[in-house]
Structures are given as C-alpha cells and as structure tokens.
C-alpha cells in the first residue's frame, strides 16, 4: 500500500511569513494526525481529525496555526504568521484502527 504522502519536504521562510503543508493519508484511513517535532525532542501532537471533523486540537496554537480536512481525505496545516520557534519537522500520520503510520515529514526553517 502507498504510505502517507507529505509535501513539500523542505521549506525555508522568513518570520512573519505564512506557510502551508499538505498531507495525503493512506487510502481508507479515517483518522489523520499532525505532529510537530522540534529538534532534539519527540513528536508532539498538534491536531487529530476523524474523517473531516476535529477530535482534538488542544495542543494547536490557534492564534497562528490552522488545519483543515475538508473532504475527509487530504489535509493542510497552515502557519500564519510564522515565528522562529516554529522551526521543526511537521509530521502527518494516519490510522484505521491501530498504530499510526507516519509520513516523511516537512522540515520547516524560519529565519
């Protein structure tokens, strides 16, 4: 089966700019997750979708981060405006009923 696809792989922006990441989960996986992985730390959950509804966004900094999964398949994560501390790898994962499957991530550098 095809894995979780993410794009772009790398992104460099200046602070206060906006950026968007895209994720295509494994076909048939109803649940989709976005994680933030800061250098030297484990991944931290930002938001969880079940189909096109948000299940948990308690760790999402909603003043600057937003995410959507309009048709219950692909998802986008947006940061506007970006701060230096947003530099991280953003991982998308999906699951059906079991362990999560992760994509290769998008490495964001904010200068």
């Amino acid at each position, binding site marked *: 089966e095809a894995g979780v696809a993410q794009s772009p792989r790398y992104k460099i922006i200046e602070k206060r700019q906006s950026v968007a990441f895209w994720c295509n989960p494994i076909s048939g996986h109803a649940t989709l997750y976005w994680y933030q992985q800061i250098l030297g*730390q484990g991944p931290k959950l930002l938001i969880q979708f079940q189909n096109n509804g948000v299940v948990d966004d308690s760790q999402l900094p909603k003043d600057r981060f937003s995410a959507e999964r309009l048709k219950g398949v692909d998802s986008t994560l947006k940061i506007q405006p970006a701060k230096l501390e947003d530099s991280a790898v953003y991982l998308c994962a999906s699951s059906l009923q079991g362990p*999560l499957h992760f994509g*290769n991530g998008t490495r964001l550098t904010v200068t």
Partner: protein
Amino acid sequence: AQSVTQPDIHITVSEGASLELRCNYSYGATPYLFWYVQSPGQGLQLLLKYFSGDTLVQGIKGFEAEFKRSQSSFNLRKPSVHWSDAAEYFCAVAPGGGSYIPTFGRGTSLIVHP
C-alpha cells in the same frame, strides 16, 4: 496524563555488539507501548508494539522489547547491531482501550562504530 522517559540521549555501540535502549513510562492503567525508529530525513517507522499478552514482543529488523509492569519499563533490545541501525529511536505510550494515539519520549540517538 501519560509520560515517557528515555534516560539516554545518545548511545554508542560497536557493530556486532548487543544493544539495550531504556524506556520508562508513567500511566495508571496498562497502556499500549511502541518503539519507533527514525532515520535521518525520514518519518517514523514502527519497530514493534505491545498491547497485551506475552510480555516479550518481537519486531522488525531483529529487535525485541520486554514489558515489565513492576518496573513500568519497555526496553528495546537487539543481540547484534548493524551499521544500518544507526538512527533515532522513540519509545511511545498510548492510553489503550482502543486509543492508539502515542505520547513520545524525547528519543535516543544510536551511534554505531565500525
């Protein structure tokens, strides 16, 4: 809330030597436990998981882990390390009861010397 402690930030071993990566968790009930591996520039790959039953679980790439309830530990082992095992290893805990959403430890970086 659950938490995971990986006490070793870096571990250095020689190729062919045995390996043990430590993981301790804090959670009231019996959680689901996982080990993931992350190679440079890659996402997280599931090595093995524990849900219930036999406390010694086998995973991919020759890895195994043992769940010890009395010590709240889930240490990862491999009898003979290969240079390609050099990567970041993450222990994770999920609430269980059908919830698989992991909380990750900070990771242990494995360095393999020839």
